[in-house]
């Protein structure tokens, strides 16, 4: 017990550092994938067949393969296959590679949710906008968008919570996120070795953060309950 109390501050400090990396990856993925998903969703609804086909293939490949493999390919492919290790081997290089893979992956998932959301807004809304002389752009931003957002909040909440946990996959390219930090005390770090409890502690970080997100997302959902 005395030992545990002695080790606790050291472990928490390391976990905090790791968790900051986890949060950075989480937020950068959202910042990238939320708008890019919209672009891809327009591509998958495009009436221009070649573009439509290309986008759908891309989405199918990304959604049909594990994120872990995507991480490995994004990180190692430039160096090992093209002979040009663009990411380098520093922590910041690995972070860029992880961000790229995560944004790619989540863009595709979000795009499908957006597509479903847009297509679930009744066609009559668009027609009402058209006969009132609105442009397609005005109809999208003033009429469709908010109705779509309202509809996609529950599936998006699911994805966002999954993303929090998925960030741990970046451990595979040795990104020093919270799981990496917890695991380091098993192998030995800062005089602590063979300890598994720091890894269990990481679970509490995920749980608390996801709890906060769940509350925030529910609030957002409530705020859009003023219309049906």
């Amino acid at each position, binding site marked *: 017990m005395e030992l545990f109390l002695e080790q606790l501050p050291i472990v928490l400090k390391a976990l905090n550092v790791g968790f900051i990396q986890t949060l950075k990856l989480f937020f950068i993925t959202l910042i990238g994938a939320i708008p890019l998903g919209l672009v891809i969703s327009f591509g998958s609804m495009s009436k221009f067949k070649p573009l439509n086909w290309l986008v759908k293939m891309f989405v199918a490949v990304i959604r049909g393969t594990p994120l872990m493999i995507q991480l490995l390919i994004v990180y190692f492919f430039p160096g090992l296959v093209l002979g040009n290790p663009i990411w380098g081997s520093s922590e910041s290089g690995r972070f860029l590679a992880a961000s790229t893979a995560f944004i790619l992956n989540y863009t595709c998932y979000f795009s499908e949710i957006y597509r479903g959301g847009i297509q679930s807004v*009744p066609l*009559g*809304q668009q*027609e*009402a*906008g*058209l*006969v*009132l*002389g*609105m*442009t397609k752009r*005005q109809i999208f931003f*003033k*009429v469709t968008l*908010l*109705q779509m957002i*309202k509809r996609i909040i529950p599936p998006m909440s699911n994805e966002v919570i999954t993303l929090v946990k998925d960030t741990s996959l970046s451990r595979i390219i040795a990104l020093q996120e919270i799981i990496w930090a917890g695991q380091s005390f098993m192998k030995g770090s800062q005089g602590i070795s063979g300890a598994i409890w720091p890894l269990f502690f990481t679970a509490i970080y995920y749980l608390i953060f996801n709890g906060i997100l769940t509350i925030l997302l529910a609030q957002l959902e409530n705020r859009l309950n*003023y*219309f*049906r």
Partner: protein
Amino acid sequence: MPILEVTGIQKSFEGTQVLTDIHFSLEKGQVLSLIGSSGSGKTTLLRCLNFLEQPDNGIIRVNGETLFDAKDPSTQKAEEIRRKRLHFGLVFQSFNLFPQYTAKENVMLAKKLLMQEQPNFKARKKEIFKEIEAEAVSLLTQMGLKDRMDNYPHQLSGGQCQRVAIARALALKPDILCFDEPTSALDPELTGEVLKVIKRLAEQNTTMIIVTHEMAFARDVSDQVIFMDEGRILEQGTPKQVFGNPKEERTRQFLNRFTEG
């Protein structure tokens, strides 16, 4: 000169002919009712007038200006079609109000967006929005919705929603206001309040085209009635002629079902 002239409209969907050789004209301030069984092409005709469908053939003229000519691609430019639509207003069977806006905001939205295109918009923004709001308030008051202006569509009854939709269409001051079965989604009690509003518009000489199954109403309110069957105009004339003394057997059959029912 008639306000609306429709000549030789044809339309087919995937090989099925839904409109064949539609000719009619409408004078300013008059009311035209389109009657006929479901699937006879009435709604498609309205949608062609509002540029929601493009006819395969035919010409649409408003106030002598050719808005659409199937043979002349220069009348079919996307940007101009948006402007041309404004000659017509359309009230839908299912209202299609924007759920995230209040009744008043529904009425104001399109006008606000249109006014933003005016060159002196920025300088007069506040003034313009005030005018638009005053107009919306006045229109909704005319529709008997004075205390409902800040309600969202889901807080309104079907009849109230449809009256908001009528105000929304009127806000853009269309030359011709079209109604696509405006009361078909309403129960009889609510139907009455919407028909009353339309009748009042007729008395104020609003030019209107009404697709309806309310025969008594059509007879009462119209200056001209068109009976359509299988995509063709089978009979047209004054309500007295069409309802009182139909020439075609098919018209008689159709009307009998209503008087018997």
